[in-house]
């Protein structure tokens, strides 16, 4: 192992590798920050540049693009409630409220440092645990994936506000958005109404941009022509962020490991890990849970650590087994093949130099991302000072552009607009867009794996539940989903009790002071 690492560090100590690393980090951050262009798009766009490089430098460039795009995607999520990548959707829940509270710079530094911690954890897990985790990831079958999706959906109780029914309806509608198109198992067309654009289904990027970007900028029209938020960073903002992060050491490490482990599961992806990390952050932060959704620091730190931990994790099946576990890993796979290298266990014997250089490259991307991110936080945070008359058209145009760039299809733009307008309307009634996003992200995983599981169960003459209970990892996820659900419901009940207590205390205080207007107000709130 140490010998391999020495080879890896030797491989990265070339000018070509460093140019690839720095250029990839800068490009990845910028592309990731553009709404609609995901980490996969970023890696795909930079792929042609790697053909003229050596294999190690080429893959280092793609790995650095992938890592930094995950980071960059969360910048607009925090500043303008528009996730640049799907993995950044969970960061909007508390990142944007922090911006609205005038804490944009604090949120951006927190996002950067949490991402660095998560990225380092992911890279270290990639370096030291690839053989073990690669084998473990192969044990994930449809039953495990189905229950992983259920665990994610069980978080709806954590994401929704007081109105659980609306949260549930939002989640179900999100899942329903994944239904149109060809059934992934039976091949039958569903809900397409013979309209050919629907055969491929509703794309995730326009839907997510509709939920977050379009809906939130339409809401900005209510503000009048003012900046989105004040930008009043504290004196010594970086030191303050470190101080706050010091109180969440366990959370940062835990969610980073969680991100890397979920990333190591082929097909799971960054968005699922960030959603799961958000739920876990809320579960762990017992004292601060009422702040979630209103700008809780833990609500940014957890998903960001996981979102960046995913990168190292998702390269594990690529290097360890030759299975690309994500879209970005698939492009890296093709880049390696283009250089005549077949990823997989034999790569560590035949081209150990490349394998270890890739691992060290993923690790070294993190300090470069830290330096670039640190240098740009002040500038990027200025975006919140832009008045609404510039911000609204700019975000809408970028969303249309990013959506159109996906498939050069106007239909996707229409989907973006319809979902954005409907999302704005129902959000006003208390249906949280985040629950719809959660359903959308997990819907495909849920249905296709349920169908696969039932086919396997049938083939083995087992009932579906018998099959589930024959899979130890699936049982683990079942237990996890039950814990998440029970905790979420308990949290809702305790939040409701706290609100009633606060109202009762205030009413008692008002009675004591004889202030009838305060009493009236609280009676109304109680109703």
């Amino acid at each position: 192992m140490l010998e391999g690492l020495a080879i890896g560090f030797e491989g990265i100590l070339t000018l070509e590798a460093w140019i690839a690393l720095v250029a990839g980090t800068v490009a990845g951050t910028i592309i990731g920050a553009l709404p609609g262009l995901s980490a996969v798009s970023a890696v795909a766009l930079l792929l042609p540049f790697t053909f003229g490089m050596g294999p190690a430098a080429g893959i280092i460039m793609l790995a650095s693009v992938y890592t930094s795009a995950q980071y960059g995607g969360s910048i607009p999520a925090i500043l303008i409630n528009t996730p640049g990548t799907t993995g950044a959707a969970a960061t909007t829940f508390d990142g944007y409220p922090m911006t609205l509270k005038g804490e944009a710079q604090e949120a951006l530094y927190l996002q950067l440092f949490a991402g660095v911690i998560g990225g380092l954890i992911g890279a270290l897990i990639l370096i030291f645990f690839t053989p073990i985790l690669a084998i473990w990831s192969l044990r994930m079958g449809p039953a495990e994936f189905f229950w992983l999706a259920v665990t994610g959906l069980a978080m709806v109780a954590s994401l929704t506000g007081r109105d659980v029914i609306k949260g549930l309806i939002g989640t179900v509608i999100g899942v329903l958005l994944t239904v149109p198109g060809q059934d992934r198992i039976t091949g039958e067309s569903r809900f397409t109404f013979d309209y050919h654009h629907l055969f491929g289904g509703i794309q995730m990027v326009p839907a997510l941009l509709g939920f977050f970007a379009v809906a939130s900028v339409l809401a900005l029209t209510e503000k009048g022509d003012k900046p989105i938020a004040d930008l009043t960073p504290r004196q010594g903002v970086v030191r303050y962020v470190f101080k706050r992060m010091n109180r969440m050491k366990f959370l940062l490490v835990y969610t980073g490991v969680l991100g890397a482990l979920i990333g190591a599961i082929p097909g799971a992806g960054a968005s699922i890990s960030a959603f799961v990390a958000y739920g876990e952050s809320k579960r762990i932060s017992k004292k601060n849970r009422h702040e979630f959704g209103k700008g809780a620091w833990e609500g940014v730190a957890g998903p960001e650590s996981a979102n960046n931990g995913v990168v190292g994790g998702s390269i594990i099946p690529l290097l360890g087994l030759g299975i690309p576990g994500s879209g970005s890993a698939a492009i890296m796979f093709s880049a390696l093949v283009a250089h005549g290298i077949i990823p997989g266990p034999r790569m560590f014997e035949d081209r150990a130099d490349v394998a270890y250089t890739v691992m060290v490259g993923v690790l070294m991307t993190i300090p470069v991302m830290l330096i670039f991110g640190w240098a740009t936080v002040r500038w990027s945070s200025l975006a919140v000072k832009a008045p609404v008359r510039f911000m609204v058209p700019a975000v809408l145009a970028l969303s249309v552009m990013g959506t159109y760039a996906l498939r050069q299809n106007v239909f996707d733009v229409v989907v973006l607009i319809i979902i954005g307008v409907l999302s704005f309307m129902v959000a006003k009634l208390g249906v949280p867009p985040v629950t719809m996003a959660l359903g959308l992200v997990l819907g495909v995983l849920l249905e296709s794996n349920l169908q696969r599981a039932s086919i396997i169960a049938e083939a083995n003459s087992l009932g579906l539940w018998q099959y589930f209970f024959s899979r130890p990892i699936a049982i683990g996820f079942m237990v996890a989903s039950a814990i998440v659900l029970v905790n979420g419901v308990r949290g809702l009940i305790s939040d409701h009790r706290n609100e009633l207590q606060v109202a009762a205390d205030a009413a008692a205080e008002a009675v004591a002071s004889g202030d009838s207007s305060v009493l009236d107000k609280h009676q109304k709130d109680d109703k």
Partner: protein
Amino acid sequence: MSLRRANIILSVVLLAFAAWVMYLATGFRDPRTGQIPMALGILIALGAVGMLVLNLVPNKGAAIDDEKPYSDVPWAKWSITAGMLVLYSAGLRPLGFYESGAIFLALISYLLTGDKSNKVKAIRNSVIFGVVGAAVLWLMFDVVLGIPTEKGILI
């Protein structure tokens, strides 16, 4: 419109929607194709019924009559913005990507300008914003990233 009334309307719309989803879910050759849509339809219907009951029973629902969810929405600006977005998407092909983008940026910027006491200045600023914004989009997507977009009259 009060939140209670809006909730009741939403419940009825959702019930109708759920019935439609369940009806569509029964029409597939392979029953597995309709399993999830049927389950989702049932869940939406149950949620809608729950919401309807909560809001029809006086003083038991979460919503109160004097909560007006849409009262702060500036409907004229909002509708024009949404309508312009639709026109923008319709204009992508005939006008070109960046040309329609420039017009969209300029018009929305002018619409949302708060102080229009000096109309000439407001129009000038909006036009500059539209042209510069479209140029930045073109530089970023077309020149740097090489993403293919609809060709238009100028670019």
